[in-house]
């Protein structure tokens, strides 16, 4: 595969074969050295074959081998002529991350780290098939979750109304239709609102270790030495099933629409076809489920803090800095070839990063650019960024989403064989509570790229600017 360097940290795969557009990869020279051998770039070239794709198929520096789309892949398709592919969004629809500020010093958290870790672990359900954070949803509540997203959870007493302004799309994707969600999907999600799940999902208490942009950090209520909370989770079983259902439908419908794809996981239909519209309505409902999920966990985490510190909500000062989605497709307007164009941007393991002044951003952050939260692995740093003007001209308002895996789960387990994993993390100052030791082994820092290197590339590429670096103190995992 031919790969040309077209910028300091930008590489291009020229259009060949069935590719409709060239592909672009954001990576440092050393990252590209490893990536050249990664199936992720073959997957990226396949994404460039999607009907209606415009600009470039893109890979962020955390790109790695996925299923269908590479993880860290971005594709914008024309809103009128393009296709929608559930594989470009993923099974965990609106998997995302939120960052919460507190008024506590990190030292205060560190002083009670075991007690707080125990309390959080007992309060926020985690692990395989975790359930029971809230009562099993009634049919009426289920519809409201799917239609209203985070707002439903706030009405139920989890978090506060001000949180909504600090979620992408106000914590509610429009066009959601609960009736487009199958009964199987509903059953899979019914008891899972407010649960973390397993795999790479986590709840962390973090220390704001370094502020790089004092003005922006102050505007976001962030300062060095402060305790913060980061939550990474998605739409749980409901979202997985929505994706599965849609792939099944599209696999059959593609033939009718005269579309063929190189990987069945890329099954797609025209956005304007009935199957495409039905999926968008179901995807939006699943996205709303994910927002409700993260919002409920916000409320649960706040309760655990209130209990351990014995203070009132005003003293604790729990508040949402921002909530981002990194597995979703959205209809947006972007400039393509010098003209404004309505496109559907698929972000599979990539984060929206609208630059300063973008009209969809809430007034409180519009002058800054969209806050972007990049979780690192559980032993190293996470980052708070802002979307930059370069993202609007170069990457459909998109940046990276995390560290990106380096090792397979089997390799990670092998590397951790015989190692005291909990002790190794304690040496890094991290207190862990988890349901599964095997899960911890798969998620150890050595299994991931360093998020700092990923963030370095997107800031050098002008897709985002760095605001703050955070270090984990407590990690809650499934």
């Amino acid at each position, binding site marked *: 595969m031919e790969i040309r360097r077209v910028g300091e940290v930008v590489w291009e795969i020229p259009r060949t074969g069935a590719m409709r557009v060239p592909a672009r990869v954001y990576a440092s020279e050393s990252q590209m050295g490893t990536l050249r051998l*990664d199936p*992720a770039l073959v997957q990226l070239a396949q994404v460039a074959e999607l009907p209606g794709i415009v600009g470039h198929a893109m890979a962020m520096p955390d790109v*790695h*081998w*996925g*299923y*269908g789309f590479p*993880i860290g892949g971005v594709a914008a398709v024309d809103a009128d002529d393009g296709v929608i592919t559930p*594989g470009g969004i*993923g*099974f*965990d629809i609106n998997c995302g991350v939120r960052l919460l500020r507190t008024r506590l010093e990190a030292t205060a958290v560190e002083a009670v780290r075991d007690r707080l870790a125990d309390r959080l672990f007992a309060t926020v359900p985690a*692990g*395989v*098939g975790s359930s029971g954070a809230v009562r099993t949803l009634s049919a009426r509540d289920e519809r409201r979750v799917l239609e209203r997203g985070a707002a439903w959870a706030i009405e139920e007493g989890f978090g506060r109304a001000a949180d909504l302004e600090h979620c992408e799309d106000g914590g509610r994707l429009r066009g959601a239709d609960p009736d487009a969600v199958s009964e*199987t999907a509903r*059953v*899979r999600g019914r008891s899972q609102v407010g649960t973390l*799940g*397993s*795999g790479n999902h986590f709840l962390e208490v973090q220390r704001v270790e370094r502020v790089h942009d004092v003005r922006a950090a102050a505007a976001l209520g962030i300062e060095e030495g402060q305790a913060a909370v980061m939550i990474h989770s998605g739409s749980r*079983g409901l979202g*997985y099933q929505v*994706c*599965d259902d849609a*792939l*099944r439908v599209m*696999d*059959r419908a593609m033939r009718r629409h005269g579309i063929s794809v190189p*990987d*069945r*996981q890329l*099954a797609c239909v025209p956005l304007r076809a009935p199957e495409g519209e039905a999926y968008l309505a179901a995807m939006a409902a699943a996205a709303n489920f994910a927002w409700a999920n993260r919002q409920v966990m916000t409320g649960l985490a706040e309760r655990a803090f209130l209990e351990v510190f014995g203070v009132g909500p005003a003293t604790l000062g729990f508040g949402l800095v921002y909530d981002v989605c990194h597995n979703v497709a959205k209809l947006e307007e972007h400039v393509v070839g010098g003209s404004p164009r309505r496109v559907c941007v698929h972000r599979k393991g990539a984060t929206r990063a609208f630059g300063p002044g973008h009209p969809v951003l809430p007034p409180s952050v519009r002058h800054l650019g969209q806050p972007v939260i990049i979780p690192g692995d559980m032993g190293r740093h996470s980052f708070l960024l802002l979307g930059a003007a370069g993202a609007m001209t170069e990457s459909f308002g998109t940046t990276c989403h995390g560290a990106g*895996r*380096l*090792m*397979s*789960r*089997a*390799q990670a387990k092998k590397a951790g064989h015989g190692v005291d994993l909990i002790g190794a993390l304690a040496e890094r100052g991290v207190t862990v509570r988890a349901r*599964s030791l*095997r*899960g911890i082994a*798969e998620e150890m820092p050595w299994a991931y790229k360093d998020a700092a290197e990923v963030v370095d590339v997107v800031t050098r590429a002008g897709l985002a600017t760095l605001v703050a670096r955070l270090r984990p103190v407590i990690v809650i995992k*499934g």
Partner: protein
Amino acid sequence: MPNRQRAPIGSRARGEDFVQHARDAARFVHEVAHTADVGFEVEAPTLEGVFERAALGLGRTIADADEIAARSRRTMTIRADDRAALLHDFLHALLLLAQVEGFLFEGVEVTAIDEGCIRAEVAGEPLDPARHHLHGEVKAVTWHGLAVERRGDTWRARVILDV
């Protein structure tokens, strides 16, 4: 659809290499290194066998097979458009059996199969959190690289799970 004679799971005489219990799956489920997810390949001399072994590959990803007893049986019939879709839908049905119904399976037997339909029985028991150890959550059976093919006398299947 060709039918196989029904017999208790594990009791029917077969070749020495034919194992249909999850506890023995390590012998015939070969992990495929995948950066983000879990992949495996299985081989068997028959189409029934390759579906059974793929099912057990999924089973050992879901839970620790040694802890599951074959206390009761479930029967399932799945139809699909082609062989790969049939494998996908079969494994997906087994995933839902575990995740939605809380039924962990230890043994599987395909009683009838053709290009577009499979009938199978699985043996296992309801999930008991006190006794059963679940591994990481399997989100889905993906279509990426999904294959069921015959090479000479051997059937092979390849599956990548989103975890």
